[in-house]
């Protein structure tokens, strides 16, 4: 299950639904890199909203290799991928 806002300091939501492939992975990687310090310290978690089925395995794979934890939940026809330390 992905975290609710109350569980952590801050949830940053990034909506990539409907966008051209591979926006999901490119944008997820950019956000993760830009927010490295806040993510690693646990101040922030990222929620990537996507309707791209492939992204549910490419994003966890890529950010997993960078040392982050991921959780995936299907919410009303799309997927929320949580990225945290």
């Amino acid at each position, binding site marked *: 299950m992905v975290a609710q806002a109350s569980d952590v300091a801050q949830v940053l939501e990034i909506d990539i*639904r*409907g*966008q*051209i*492939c*591979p*926006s999901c*992975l*490119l*944008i997820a*990687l*950019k956000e993760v890199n830009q927010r490295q310090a806040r993510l690693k310290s646990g101040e922030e978690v990222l929620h990537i909203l996507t*309707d*791209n*089925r*492939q992204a*549910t*395995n*490419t994003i*966890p*794979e*890529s950010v997993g290799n960078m040392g982050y934890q991921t959780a*995936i939940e*299907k919410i*009303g*026809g*799309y*997927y929320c991928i949580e990225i945290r330390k």
Partner: protein
Amino acid sequence: MQADYAPIILTSLLCGLSAGFLMHRSDFCVTGMFRDFFLFKDARMLRVLVFMVVASMALFHVAKVLGLIAHYPFPLLGAMSLTNILGGVLFGIGMVLAGGCVVGTLYKMGAGSMLSAVAFVGLLAGSAFYAQIHPAWSALTQQLAVFGPGKTIPQALGLSPYALIVPVLAAGGWLVWRWARQGALVMPSYAEGYIQPWMTAVLLAGVGLASYIVVGMPLGITTSYAKLGATVQSWFAPDHVASLSYFQAQGLKYVPPFGDTVITGGAGPALDAVAAIQYPLVGGIIFGAMVSAVKLGEWKLRYRVPARQYVSVLIGGILLGLAARMVPACNVWHLWGGVPILAGQSVLYVIGLLPGTWIGSVILARYVVRTA
């Protein structure tokens, strides 16, 4: 329509429905397979594609040995020319900018992607526009012809097909067997209703075989884009459409396996053999993907995306449509039709597709998906 068309229309429709459903479940995007290799050094899906080519090669030739194949090589293949490579380069750029190739665009559109619907319009426009440059392009194709009149590599070398097919199949089979043992063909899956892409690869190879046996050739859809484009154009400018030689030509002329008369077809607006084979396939892929998405509760029209992505898919779609006529044909026709019988055009096309996809990936990452 003659009675001969019934088995063709039915088979194409069933092939399209099952392909659309499977592609949506596995997100079986050929564009993504090549693009992610260049963009992320991720070759996992590309291995699945190789598996599909090898599986098709094995199935087609077992069927040929059993006497189930009426036409070998199949109709619509031509002699080799360097223009096949040039077309492949443009196709590669176009498919990355369009977010999917000629078939990928269909299943994504069926699942509710507005971007793919715009790419589809671009594809129709680009395919129909090709008719304007066809005389010049076909003259260039003849000038740049290579390896003589043979349609397959074995034919061009004066060999029996098996002299090359058997060693290639053995090498490909060994490669796939190694990947399978390493578990390199299995994708982790989190999407609901996910079907492992390797399984879809096997099933799609079977779908291609069914088409080859009943229709007389593997799956192909690109001529119908020009046909649909010509149809729309003929509502506004019928005389102009009638004046273009490309829309008059009857490139397809063959006796289907379950028929006894010659049927013909071309890119013009007429409801001919090309329409009977390809329109049900196009409609089937769109509808099959829609059924898959609706069943998962994932169908939703999504159109709120950055404007530059709309520009990208429109330009990409036009380029893709144009390239699909220049090559001629597309990923599906060449990768799970032509390459499995070592068709010369198909091999040259792939040689062009690789640098084209790389160029497209660079443009996409730099100008379309802004991450800077």
